């Protein structure tokens, strides 16, 4: 179900799909169109002033109407500049506002999507959907729209004026417009392809830089600096070649356009030169239009190719909004318990913390393999379960099901004896504490991060929580104590410090069910002892599931599940599993050696 909807043939470049985001700006956009029309009329009119000046003042050798001429001219200029002001301001405001709404819609939707979406799409990919795709759409709705009106109406009005003044000459000039348009469209396709290739090479170069820097140690030990250089310069040479090729294309494109205006000018000279005899003003006006017509034509062709590229952005964006979460609360549940944004907490039953897997069969939505088959297990309140296995073996599966990040393909997960699907996700999540292996803090102060666990925690509760996990020493060392900024992703703190803060955060949430994804990152021994002590304290009086990497820490768990290649291969207490001399035994032996050595060498 998370599969994105098949790309449908969309009309109007997919714009119909985003109409609802433009609706609030309908009136402003109408005014923009009106103003675009006005400015184009004034722009068409400006050469008429010159025409008047030449025909009347200069040929007539009189200055009789000069004051009036000046007044009208200034009024036209003022009107034009006022229209420019209002329309530019409105266009930009619409652009950024539409962008804002699109980002908001994307972000809000992401908060409701299930984990399979996040597992199938990289952070970078989703990030680009929220920030880059949306920005292209906004500028389409504002600038392209307004400029489109301007350029189209300029073309039409200029044609009308020319036809009105001298139909024969006008037709001669106008005939080249469709010819030029056809020529331009030929170039466009090639240009788009060339630009795409250049972008690709450019990102290759950046990742080459990245490798050269992050892999510096390896490059040195292998003494392959020259090989790296060779690869790099080959890529930069390709970049140069392609860019120059593209500039030839662009140059030819620009040349065609300039030549086209000159052809128009030449036509005016050739067939309209006689006008200069008595109507030098009309002659000069025709020259202005002849040269000015090509720009709108070029713009319109450009706009069409822009639309084609923006269509991709629109599709990606609407596809994101179309993705359905595969974990959804039923309407009845939402009715009773509320949704993630408007919970009805008064209706929530208290959560005890009994978990039961009842004949659960599970396959990841994007996977082929069934990882759990008719799995049954009861985790009574207060018990402690450990899941062990190699990195990437699939240790998170059970946790994902308990947290209802995924739902079983068959069977049920019972929370306090009732199917988890009978209550809202937020109800369950509000009673779960989660401590990640790579602790994730948000930018902001330490306090803000702690309150993430429980926004209503009192000062006293915060103090107790940080003391319980010995994070008080960390806080004491910080310059502004709890109000110290932790930096983006908490990067101003060390891994160990982040770990302790995230423990305190979990405690403040006072969860009934605690999930611990144990740290693999190396922390110094002292911190590790502190963390271990914190874990022991935290799991008291809660149902806990530990995803463990250090086997020595799980020896006393009520049940250990060993996972290999995604499946549970063994389960039992530490004693039972050691006696079985199976997979757990092997893993344990290997780690034991390492740990013993580390302990002695300490």
């Amino acid at each position: 179900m998370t599969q994105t909807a098949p790309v449908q043939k969309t009309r109007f470049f997919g714009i119909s799909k985003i109409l609802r985001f433009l609706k609030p700006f309908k009136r402003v956009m109408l005014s923009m169109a009106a103003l675009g029309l006005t400015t184009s009329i004034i722009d068409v009119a400006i050469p008429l002033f010159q025409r008047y000046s030449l025909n009347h003042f200069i040929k007539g050798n009189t200055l009789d109407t000069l004051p009036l001429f000046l007044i009208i001219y200034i009024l036209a200029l003022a009107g034009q500049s006022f229209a420019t002001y209002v329309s530019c301001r409105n266009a930009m405001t619409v652009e950024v506002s539409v962008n804002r709404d699109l980002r908001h819609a994307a972000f809000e939707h992401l908060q409701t999507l299930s984990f399979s979406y996040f597992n199938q799409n990289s952070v970078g990919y989703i990030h680009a959907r929220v920030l880059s795709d949306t920005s292209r759409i906004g500028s389409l709705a504002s600038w392209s729209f307004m400029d489109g009106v301007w350029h189209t109406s300029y073309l039409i009005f200029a044609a009308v004026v020319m036809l009105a003044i001298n139909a024969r000459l006008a037709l001669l000039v106008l005939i080249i417009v469709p010819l030029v348009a056809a020529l331009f469209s030929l170039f466009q396709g090639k240009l788009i392809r060339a630009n795409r290739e250049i972008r690709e090479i450019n990102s290759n170069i950046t990742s080459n830089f990245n490798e050269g820097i992050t892999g510096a140690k390896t490059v040195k030990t292998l003494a392959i600096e020259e090989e790296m250089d060779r690869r790099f310069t080959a890529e930069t040479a390709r970049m140069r070649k392609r860019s120059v090729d593209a500039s030839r294309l662009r140059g030819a494109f620009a040349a065609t356009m300039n030549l086209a205006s000159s052809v128009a000018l030449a036509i005016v000279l050739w067939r309209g030169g006689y006008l200069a005899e008595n109507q030098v003003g009309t002659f000069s006006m025709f020259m202005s239009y002849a040269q000015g017509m090509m720009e709108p034509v070029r713009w319109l062709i450009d706009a069409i190719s822009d639309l084609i590229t923006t269509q991709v952005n629109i599709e990606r964006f609407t596809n994101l909004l179309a993705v359905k979460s595969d974990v959804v609360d039923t309407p009845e549940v939402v009715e009773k318990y509320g949704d993630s944004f408007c919970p009805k907490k008064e209706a929530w039953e208290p959560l005890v913390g009994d978990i039961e897997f009842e004949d659960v069969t599970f396959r990841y939505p994007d996977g082929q393999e069934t990882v759990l088959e008719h799995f049954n297990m009861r985790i009574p309140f207060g018990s402690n379960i450990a899941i062990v296995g190699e990195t990437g073996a699939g240790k998170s599966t059970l946790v994902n099901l308990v947290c209802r990040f995924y739902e079983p393909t068959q069977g049920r997960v019972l929370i306090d004896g009732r199917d988890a699907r009978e209550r809202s996700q937020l109800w369950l999540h509000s009673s779960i504490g989660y401590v990640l292996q790579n602790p994730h803090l948000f930018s902001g102060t330490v306090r803000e991060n702690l309150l993430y666990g429980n926004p209503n925690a009192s000062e006293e509760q915060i103090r107790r929580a940080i003391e319980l996990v010995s994070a008080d020493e960390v806080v004491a060392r910080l310059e502004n104590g709890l109000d110290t900024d932790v930096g983006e992703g908490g990067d101003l703190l060390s891994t160990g410090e982040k770990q302790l803060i995230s423990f305190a955060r979990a405690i403040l949430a006072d969860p009934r069910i605690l999930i611990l994804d144990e740290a693999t990152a190396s922390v110094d021994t002292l911190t590790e002892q502190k963390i271990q002590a914190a874990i022991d304290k935290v799991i008291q009086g809660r149902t806990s599931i530990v995803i463990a990497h250090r086997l020595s820490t799980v020896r006393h768990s009520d049940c250990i599940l060993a996972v290999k290649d995604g499946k549970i291969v063994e389960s039992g207490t530490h004693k039972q599993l050691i006696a079985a001399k199976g997979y757990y035994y092997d893993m344990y032996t290997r780690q034991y050696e390492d740990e013993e050595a580390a302990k002695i060498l300490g």
Partner: protein
Amino acid sequence: MKDKTQSKEKRRLVFDFLKGSKLFFAVSILSAALSALADMLTPQIIRTTIDNVIGSEEASLPAPVMRLIEKIGGFGYLKTHMIIMALAVLAVALIKVASQYSFRVYNTKGSETLVKTMRDTLFHRIERLPFSWHMKNKTGDIIQRCTSDIDTLRNFVSEQMTGIFRIAIMLVLSIIFMLSMDPLLTLIAIIPMPLIMLYSLSFHKTVRTQFEKCDENEGKLSAMVQENLTGVRVVRAFGREKTELDRFNTQNTYYTSLWVRVAHSLSRFWSSSDFLAGFQILIVVAVGAVFCVKRGTTAGDYVAFISYNGMLIWPVRMLGRMISEMSKAGVSIDRIHYIMKSEPEHDLPDPVKPDMTGDIRFEHVTFAYENCPEILTDVSFTAESGKTLGILGGTGSGKSTLMFLLDKLYDLPEGNGTISIGGTDIRLADTRYLRENIGMVLQEPYLFSRTISENIGITSEHITLEDIREAARDACLDDTVMQFAQGYETKVGERGVTLSGGQKQRTAIARMLTQKTPVMILDDSLSAVDTETDAKIRRALEKHFGGATVIIISHRITTLSHCDRIIVLDKGRIAENGTHDELKCAGGLYSRIYESQSGLGEEV
């Protein structure tokens, strides 16, 4: 004083970068000049048409042009054959279009050559900067210097510098032509120009701070989305979707309001400068008309004059923006210069090539990383030629540092003991030669995002797939690779498969084996493979590479027990030194670990 030499250095840097592209830029500027000249000719043709061909004013054209017109048949003939004037316009247009094309292509050639030179030079330099430099500098920051700062510098040269040349040429030429027609009117036309330019300049300067603020807040918004996505588990597990949405909303709205402010400033500027430009044209149109009537300026002059005037306005408005953007380049030059001024690794003069098959000897080696406590204290030992040396040590005992020093990733300062190979102090040795002859597998191996076979064969250009597979077989990797759908052509990393820790280690071992070096170092490189595979790999090593000097670092006794000699490193000092049989009963650290590791069965 220091500032002066610094800025001189930076200027030299830019000139060095420009070496291969100067000529291209010169051609492009010449082309621009030619195109500007062609631009000047069209109004002259039209003026002549209006005044002399159609009209009957006294012609004041240069003598050669007059002769040409006489040759064709005089103005009278032209009047009945207007197509000739039209063709003249087209001919000029062809010159203009051709020179514009040449400008564009040569300008791109110049700027792309410049970018290539900068990128290549930086990459070359970065690869050769000492490892300590890499440890000090953040990857993201260096990459930014190599990408966006290079782009800024490119724009500075290829857009702003050439742009200013173009504008200057355009200005000078139009003013010359205008002066030749009517000096007084020219003066009137020029007077508002500096005003328009100054207005544009001061506006772009102020709006830049607004733009910077927008950028900064875009960064914040982007970071917020990034955090939300990477922390999606935390958000969900704590049920904090609403908080996240609120936070995002606040920033999203604030960021948008900043842009709305920019929108107001920009539209104020655009509309007012439009008005100014339009007003300037109005003045020329009106005063020109007055001059025509009162001073007998011809209609042709009037039309041509208005054309020239039109050519002035845009460049002047652009100039302000360009000048304000130029100041960005200074910062970028600084940031690139930072990389270029860092000292690369270098050998002493006349480096020697030591006998790599000789003994490796550490004598009284003491070492500390910059601003860190001592990590090695008076370490002495010998890895005998052709033998296997085992090193046992805990985290932070300095065992990896020993190997970094041996491979000259860090230089051992004078007076801190010596490391020698085959009797040669490695300080005197050719670093490249040394590294080529030491095969080293690091604790956390780094693989490049290429195919598996490219990764294994990376050190030699002409390696056959069979050689690669043989190395992979020795490293117990072949079977695994053959299971991949694309076998050895499987891409590693970002856009390819993610290898497990053990698979990565084995790939790195295979990579080292293809080097066939006389010295091989395995720095804890078997930690993620199981005991059985560990033993298999070691057997393969012994069988195929019997003659090499091998150093194995581990804290697994089974891995070390077959070594010819074992040293135990404890807190930067040698605690024990002997064979497995000697050490296991010596009652020291080694025997304690031996006992604890072999006593596992009883303990549980």
